């Protein structure tokens, strides 16, 4: 039971019984619905790193969209720092699954977009963006247009844009999907540093179970659509882990079983 709650700290994000459905493709109003989420409850404590794992189409991106205020939930509540998020936008830094770069803006112009909307001084925004772009290996591409970038580069620009938004809560929807293994490892390391040094709170989505086990404090495993929480697992211990640690290997196997739908003893 203790696994269902964050480490005794104050909850940063609280999702309570959230449900969401969409009209099925081509359906008339009031017609058949696609149920994306059916009563998901979860929480992320302050400075915690929480990962959502679940089969494709189970509603992970939908949950992120609700947390970011793009949609309102059909039922249930989302609270950030105790305040209701019900279509409230601009409270979290959200990196969507697609990179969504503006084709008419250069890399630099895309990276500063969030700061621009927040009204940050242009020169300050540009300086911050240049630093982070350099850190992410995009130095020399500041003036390039997105069409000239590889998929992995585009994804990193989107990550820079998200990280620059001055928000404590980060919601990252498969941020490393398009990266090669080396760059991915470097980005993971950066993310961990961001959390330990800058005390950001992270809600993270991935399809890579090993990545989840290596990075997270806690992992929520969701069911097939409509998404519900199937199980919660706490990672072995805080701090750096290796893929070969016996605890990591064991947890990975357990989570893979959960994802396959094998009934788990602890649930």
């Amino acid at each position: 039971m203790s696994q269902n709650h964050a480490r005794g700290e104050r909850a940063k994000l609280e999702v309570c019984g959230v449900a969401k459905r969409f009209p099925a493709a081509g359906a008339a109003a009031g017609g058949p619905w696609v149920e994306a989420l059916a009563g998901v409850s979860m929480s992320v404590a302050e400075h915690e790193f929480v990962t959502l794992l679940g089969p494709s189409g189970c509603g992970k991106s939908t949950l992120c969209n609700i947390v970011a205020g793009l949609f309102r939930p059909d039922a249930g509540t989302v609270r950030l720092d105790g305040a209701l998020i019900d279509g409230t936008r601009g409270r979290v830094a959200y990196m969507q699954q697609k990179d969504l770069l503006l084709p008419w803006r250069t890399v630099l112009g895309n990276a500063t977009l969030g700061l621009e909307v927040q009204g940050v001084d242009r020169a300050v925004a540009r300086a911050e963006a240049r630093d982070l772009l350099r850190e992410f290996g995009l130095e020399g591409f500041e003036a390039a247009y997105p069409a000239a970038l590889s998929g992995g580069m585009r994804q990193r620009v989107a990550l820079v844009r998200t990280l620059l938004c001055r928000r404590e809560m980060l919601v990252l929807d498969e941020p490393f999907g398009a990266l090669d293994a080396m760059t991915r490892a470097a980005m993971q390391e950066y993310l961990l540093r961001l959390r330990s040094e800058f005390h950001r709170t992270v809600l993270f989505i991935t399809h890579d179970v090993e990545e989840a086990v290596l990075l997270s404090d806690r992992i929520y495993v969701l069911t097939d659509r409509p998404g519900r929480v199937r199980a919660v697992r706490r990672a072995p211990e805080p701090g750096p882990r290796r893929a070969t640690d016996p605890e990591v290997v064991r947890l990975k196997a357990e989570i893979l079983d959960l994802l396959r739908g094998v009934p788990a003893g602890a649930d």
Partner: protein
Amino acid sequence: MSALSPRQIAKTTLGAARARGARPGRLLRRAGAWWRQAAPPAGLIAVLIAGWEWAVRAFGVPPYILPPPSQIAAVLIADRAILLGDATVTLAEVLLGFAVAFVVGVALALAIVSSRTVERAVYPLVIASQTVPVFAIAPLLIVWFGYGMASKVAMAALIVFFPIVVNTVDGLRAADEDLVNLLRILGAGRRRILLTIRIPAALPFVFSGVRIAVATSVIGAVIGEWVGATRGLGFDMIHANAQLHIDRVFAAIVYLSVMALALFGAVSALEWAALPWRREGTR
């Protein structure tokens, strides 16, 4: 995990992609490509003109029916002062008419996409107005706006108004909804979404409308001049025609074609400058 920084790793894996910048010889290759494109039509035109010259001489066609190109060229040079003066008048009508249509058309398109009421009231009328043959109302325009420039400006404006409105409306609606949502998630309001997403996304559409419109507006101004004017290339043509100075008619046509081509080229150049992200080589 390794001790390498993301920066170091990305450098090793991505250094190759950076070699894509400017290379020497690129300009030369571009000139070559341009020549390969321009040579065939230029050659065809030369052949046609030579054939025309030969046929007129061989069959003894009288110059008041069809003058040879050499005679047209002679008129182009001899009457250049008058023709240039008239061309300036026509060009001014075209540019003014185009500017009026552009300003009013874009403003109307913005109103149509930002208000459902305006859209329901105005858009059907804009589309229905296309069934009115604009040429047919040219005489009315002369009555209302007089023999001077104003009636031709109105004519040119009316003719290009429709493609500008329709293309701008389409363009403003073509914005990727995901990008609009991205801005919403960042906390942006309608105004910022319009400026940051909808207008940039609309620009390619606006430019393709403008490219068609600018050549058509030349037609509008000339028709206005035919119906009633005291100056302009259209006025020139009507007079020369009445006096069977067919060479002079052709000379005016040459000026009009060059003007339409130059306007088309100017719009293309503007588009190239305004939409760097659509250029060849950046995609």
